[in-house]
């Protein structure tokens, strides 16, 4: 009996020792795994977000997204102007569904639609083709426009109360060209990248809280970054590619094999500031990001999917939410993916997304923004016409260069 008890006691002791050693070894392995290797944020699409819109509303081409300080998601879209007649019978009074939603929409984290407004009103000129949305540190909503005569930007309160218009609509119209017809015809308009008052089809706005300055990605007609006083709208400085004085001379079609052009292509599609106060500018058609100081001194550039022609690969960017903003997430509306880029090296780490109509896929992924938890939001232009959320699942080892559709693992 005594020897049997001794035997059982020895087995218990051996198991405890083995489990303790095993646990320490595994802990050490886990720590080593976390420290080593190529890691990047991993995302999954949230197919249940946002919730259906009320009133049988549908989105048009969605060409701007931002997340405000309350983590509410704001988008701007082109509504009925980009909806075919058979997409909006309710609006045409020929059927029960559907109608274009108001251009500016605010969603909460649960995907509920909160405020909605936008369109022509008294005291300002609504763009022919609104483009880009930004919510500044004072809670004001900024909107640009890339329609034919759009050469101005607008500022509203979150409730849609008009605050300020900077620039005048139609300023880029060629002398003698008639207004009201062929507004989309480029030949009726000419760039004015050194204009101190108006713009040339603005793509996106970013307001620097520290200096209270607005950085304007200007644009679809101009070839510059313009910097304004965010309260008065007064132009303070501007620059072109590599910090050059911008020149509106038309460029030849983008050629991946040619030397990079010394001017931006059209459109200059984003100009966002990072935590270390560097300005990252999207030369969309040139497949490149250029980095500048706030004064316009060129620092470096990176190319992405350099063989991409036509509409290019560098559409819009968002910075990761870690303290150093280690990663850039770049929307690429031609190759239909989000590129995850190391911000310091401008080296692409991985991509996710694919072309298609299902959740997590894209058709013209145009704009991208990030909330305080690191979740990404994308909007799609053309016939994509939607807003999607990609849930941040934390850092994970990079196993594949192109992840494709990041479908939820639970489905």
């Amino acid at each position: 009996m005594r020897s049997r008890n001794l035997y059982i006691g020895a087995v218990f002791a051996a198991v405890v020792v083995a489990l303790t050693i095993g646990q320490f070894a595994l802990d050490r392995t886990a720590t080593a795994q976390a420290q080593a290797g190529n890691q990047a944020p991993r995302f999954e699409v949230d197919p249940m977000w946002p919730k259906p819109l009320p009133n049988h509303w549908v989105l048009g081409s969605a060409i701007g997204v931002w997340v405000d300080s309350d983590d509410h998601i704001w988008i701007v879209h082109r509504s009925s102007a980009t909806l075919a007649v058979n997409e909006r019978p309710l609006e045409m009074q020929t059927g029960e569904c559907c109608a274009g939603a108001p251009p500016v929409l605010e969603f909460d984290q649960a995907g509920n639609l909160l405020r909605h407004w936008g369109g022509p009103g008294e005291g300002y000129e609504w763009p022919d083709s609104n483009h880009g949305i930004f919510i500044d540190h004072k809670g004001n909503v900024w909107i640009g426009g890339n329609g034919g005569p759009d050469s101005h930007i607008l500022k509203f309160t979150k409730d849609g109360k008009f605050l300020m218009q900077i620039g005048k609509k139609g300023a880029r119209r060629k002398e003698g060209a008639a207004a009201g017809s062929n507004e989309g015809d480029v030949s009726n308009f000419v760039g004015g990248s050194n204009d101190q008052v108006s713009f040339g089809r603005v793509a996106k706005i970013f307001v620097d809280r520290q200096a209270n300055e607005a950085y304007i990605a200007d644009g679809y007609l101009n070839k510059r970054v313009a910097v304004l006083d965010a309260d008065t709208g007064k132009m303070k400085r501007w620059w072109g590619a590599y910090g050059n004085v911008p020149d509106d001379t038309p460029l030849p079609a983008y050629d991946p094999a040619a030397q990079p052009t010394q001017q931006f292509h059209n459109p200059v599609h984003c100009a966002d500031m990072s935590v270390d106060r560097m300005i990252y500018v999207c030369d969309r058609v040139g497949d490149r990001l250029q980095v500048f100081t706030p004064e316009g001194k060129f620092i470096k550039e990176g190319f992405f999917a350099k063989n991409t022609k036509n509409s290019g690969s560098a559409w819009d960017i968002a910075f990761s939410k870690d303290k150093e903003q280690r990663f850039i997430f770049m929307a690429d509306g031609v190759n239909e993916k989000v590129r995850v880029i190391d911000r310091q090296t401008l080296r692409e780490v991985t991509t996710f997304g694919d072309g298609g109509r299902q959740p997590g896929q894209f058709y013209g992924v145009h704009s991208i923004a990030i909330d305080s938890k690191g979740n990404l939001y994308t909007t799609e232009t053309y016939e994509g016409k939607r807003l999607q959320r990609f849930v941040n699942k934390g850092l994970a080892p990079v196993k594949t260069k192109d992840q494709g559709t990041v479908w939820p693992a639970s489905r």
Partner: protein
Amino acid sequence: MSIRSLVCYVAAFVATLACVAGTACAHDIPRDVTVQTFVKPDGQTLRVLARVPLRALSDVEFPRRERDFVDLERVDQALDDAARLLLSNNLELREDDTPLASPRIVSARMSLESDRSFATFDEALAHVTGPGLPADTSIYWEQGILDVLFEYPIESDVAHFSVHAAFDRLALKVVTSLQFIPPGGTLRAYLLEGDAGLVNLDPQWHQAAARFVVLGFQHILGGMDHLLFLLCIVIPFRRARTLIPIVTAFTVAHSITLIAAAYNLAPDALWFPPLIETLIAMSIVYLALENIVSARLGGRWIITFLFGLVHGFGFSFGLQHTLQFAGSHLVTSLLAFNVGIELGQLLVLAICLPLLSLLFRYKQAERVGTIILMVIVAHTAWHWMLERFDVLRQFPWPTVTAAGLASSLRWLLLLVVLAAAAWLIPLLQRRAASEPTVESSER
């Protein structure tokens, strides 16, 4: 009702409808608002820092300039009024159960909604007492934030303070984030929804214990699955002598996992709560079927212990949002919660056991009665199990990682140590009992 008042009522109704149906309407009650507060006693002064969005303070008219920008040169009086009427008048503070006098407003100022200085007390204090926004800053009035520093005279900074933040009228949904910083102590964070009543910021052990006894009592009585499990345990053993080891095994087991979960030793994964809920339903099905087939009474305490571990995690889910009220008495509060659970169980047993005895004596033979009851219980629990498993299936199985395996080994180690103790303690007791005393050996 006069025609005039009827017209007024109709007009008000139509205006309300217009506001509801339309977009944003001036002076709307906001949907949701978060009020951030710090409470710090220091010497004979208690400082309260509060931050609230101006859109929640629509009862006060803020002077404005063009385009409804707040006129910062003339706004001070309105900010003081808002601070007093809407904040301090709805904030009751007590020092050792004595209400504090009205506070002094040291500073009330406007900030931008993107300001992040309320991350810590020191940053917030520096912000509120530092230079304000330049007078020419353009802030649309509903997009501003009111920051206030109140000072209350107190007798001692080591007194026991309690707070009643009744800010629930500021919005349809109000959350008050309150951080209490006692002298030399660690910061305590509370998240209070609506009007949460009087909250002891530094509860004494008996106050925390009393609160958690009540919570435990309410929790067990509100958990039908736990009660059915209890019924399954006791139905074959309706005598105290046989019940005591089984109920003790259940209590010890659920206390272990409840305390472990409170110290963040449970897996922090989305699949874990539905897994536990499914296992709880499964435990009821198992015991009900075992009772039908005829229970192996000798081994019941072991299975009850194992299922008790699972139920302890289940109890912990009900505790997650209330542990903030434990103050510095986490263990006391957890034990008190367990006491509440036991009291609830005793109450249920006190009602069930006589009823079962009466049932089996006068209405139905014990064996048949047990089978009927257990079939009903098993049927109910079976449906719970399937429903909960459906929820569980929506979560991916965790990928096997070194960190996950290490965590599993820690739990296995605990179980092995417990098993060794269960084997060793009776062995030592038997040995001690069998050893002859000195007196008898000398004889």
